[in-house]
């Protein structure tokens, strides 16, 4: 139940984020919407690896080595998502730097004012 709820929320977050990125005209708001969609993707990946009744893949007194395979959940999606979050910050920083640069050139953040590439 927890996994299904989380996956549904993740999908909805992706949809909400994409909707915002498509209809907003302010560049900063588009980047905010992208980060929301990013969070949604991460939630879906982690939730797919979740198994009810099992615990985190860290061994200590509560989870001895012997029955690790029976008690822990899949560690691989977590490692992937960890990478994805860090790279997400890198891409967000790049987008923000370019937004700043665009604002410096044109003094506006409205995407419709950037018509250079229109045919």
């Amino acid at each position: 139940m927890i996994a299904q709820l989380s996956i549904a929320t993740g999908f909805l977050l992706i949809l909400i984020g994409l909707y915002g990125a498509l209809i907003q005209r302010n560049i900063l708001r588009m980047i905010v919407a992208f980060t929301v969609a990013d969070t949604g993707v991460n939630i879906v990946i982690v939730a797919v690896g979740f198994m009810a009744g099992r615990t985190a893949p860290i061994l200590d007194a509560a989870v001895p080595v012997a029955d690790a395979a029976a008690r822990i959940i899949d560690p691989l999606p977590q490692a992937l998502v960890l990478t994805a979050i860090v790279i997400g910050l890198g891409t967000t920083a790049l987008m923000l730097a370019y937004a700043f640069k665009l604002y410096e050139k044109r003094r506006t953040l409205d995407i419709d004012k950037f018509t250079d590439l229109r045919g």
Partner: protein
Amino acid sequence: MVETLIVIAATLTGAAFLLALWRFLKGPSAADRVVAFDGLTIVSITMIILIAFVEGRGIYLDVALVYALLSFLGVIAVARYLERGF
């Protein structure tokens, strides 16, 4: 007995969470929303420790510590932004 008490505490915490969330969604000024943000993060710390207790994993407490420090930083950053400090 103790389980009942924990369930009562969890319910109250959830209610506090909802009330603060309502203030965040409603709050007329930006400062109101930041106050609600602060309240939400503090309630979340209690929720994290509750999760750690239910799952029985002491190592989750590190997350609560990091969370407490970062919520403080977030509020400071927004407050400095509001008063045009950086």
